[in-house]
């Protein structure tokens, strides 16, 4: 499953202005950072999952949460072993493994990671990159060139992934052993993968640039956009909700 892929739909989340979506996702992350309570953190994550389910993105959200959980677990272990405040909790032969302070800060940190990343990752599921780009240019007057570079980079990710797999296949078919367990041998076999990828990327990027140039890329102005991205009532409601959320998170 491609985690950056757009999931078509027409839920209330899809219908929000792309700029609202971007800021809401960002502020939701902020809320997860400002709160000092593990419980609020858990509530925020659950709330996010519930909202995604309402938007028909349950599968994606759970898949993401699972992946983020692994990252969170890793951070949990690190934090647990290195934070040394509070009372010792597990002591064996005078060696203290972890403390109460370590446990609580580890829990908070790992949930914080999940809570911050989840809305940002879900943003890609409900927003077309093109829309986000055009809306940023239209509403916030971000220079089109930069917005275009970012969307193009995102669009090229799946293209390059396929290309990479095909190159890997081509090299495997020649007998290059990528299934070898020897690390050094593996490293020496990386050139056959990256040289063709580099060559084909350069070609693709160049042909993309020419095609954009011929279709008047340099002529574009802020006024050029065809689609309008007006802010509506739902955007206002969303903004109020998200501000309440931050305030609540900061107080609790």
């Amino acid at each position: 499953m491609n985690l950056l892929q757009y999931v078509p739909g027409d839920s209330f989340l899809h219908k929000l202005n792309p700029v609202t979506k971007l800021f809401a996702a960002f502020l939701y992350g902020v809320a997860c950072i400002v709160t000092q309570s593990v419980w609020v953190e858990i509530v925020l994550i659950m709330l996010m999952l519930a909202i995604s389910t309402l938007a028909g993105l349950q599968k994606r959200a759970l898949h993401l949460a699972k992946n983020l959980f692994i990252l969170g677990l890793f951070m949990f272990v690190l934090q647990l072993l290195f934070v040394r405040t509070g009372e010792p909790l597990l002591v064996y032969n005078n060696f203290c493994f972890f403390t109460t302070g370590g446990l609580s800060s580890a829990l908070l940190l790992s949930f914080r990671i999940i809570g911050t990343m989840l809305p940002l990752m879900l943003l890609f599921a409900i927003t077309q990159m093109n829309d986000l780009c055009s809306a940023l240019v239209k509403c916030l007057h971000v220079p089109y060139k930069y917005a275009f570079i970012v969307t193009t980079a995102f669009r090229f990710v799946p293209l390059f992934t396929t290309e990479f797999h095909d190159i890997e296949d081509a090299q495997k078919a020649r007998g290059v052993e990528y299934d070898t367990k020897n690390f050094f041998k593996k490293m020496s076999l990386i050139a056959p993968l990256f040289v063709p990828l580099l060559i084909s990327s350069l070609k693709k990027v160049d042909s993309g640039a020419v095609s954009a140039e011929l279709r008047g890329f340099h002529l574009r102005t802020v006024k050029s956009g065809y689609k309008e991205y007006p802010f509506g009532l739902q955007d206002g409601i969303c903004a109020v909700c998200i501000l309440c959320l931050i305030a609540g998170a900061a107080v609790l």
Partner: protein
Amino acid sequence: MISFEDFSFCYMGSEEKALSNLSLQIEKGEFVGIIGNSGAGKSTFTYALSGIVPHHFQGDFYGMVKVNGLDTVNVAPEKLAEFVGEVFQDIDSQMVASVVEDEILFGLENFGFSKEEIKKRLEQSLEMLGISDLRYRQISSLSGGQKQKVAIASILALEPEIIVLDEPTGELDPESTVMIFEILKRLNKEFGKTVIIVEQKIMMLCEYAERLLVLEQGKLVYDGKSKDIVEHVELFEELGINVPRVVKLGLRLKEEGLYQGKIPTNVKEAEEMLKEVLAC
């Protein structure tokens, strides 16, 4: 409409000229097929038409290329784009958007047309290629033939008088290939567009293109009607171009003294020929 006057081009860093001493004219409304071996300069020819040579790919430029009376050296490619639209070989990398509609909007927005004009042109170009139902689809979910149609639509939206295509059917299967050629035929006949296409499938060119240009190592070695290839079969064989089997059959029958009529270029004509041969 298009004229090449003693045009030569040598890419920067290359020792050999990609094209040398090319002189020809292409009139409005022609359907021109270009064939030749790889490295013969076919792509360079299309680049010269759309101003990519010498504006994007630099090198030594000799002679003159004029499109609609404009010298391509003095005019920016985006200015030329009003007259010439080019579809490139690599289908995927020439796309700039992830949704069909946005792909077509890209050029229209850039050129700053009014909202009404954009809406009109968007719908019109989708209509012309028969892909109105694909409007909101993700490009990555389309088949090769459908993607190629989107690429053509996004060029057509800018309403150029000349459409240049560089091996548009290279990666397509026969069914989609015929479909693309049928569309080009319609654009040429119904909408009066000048179509210039680079293609390896000689059978398709014989059927659809009226005029044929053959390039060999940067030189123009044949410029004539595609129907007339029957008179130059030896030249084509020498150049390594696969002459349709029915043409060869016709010539063999003539050689044997069994047939005197017109040499067929497609199966239908060949059927007529055989009927005639068998009747007498």
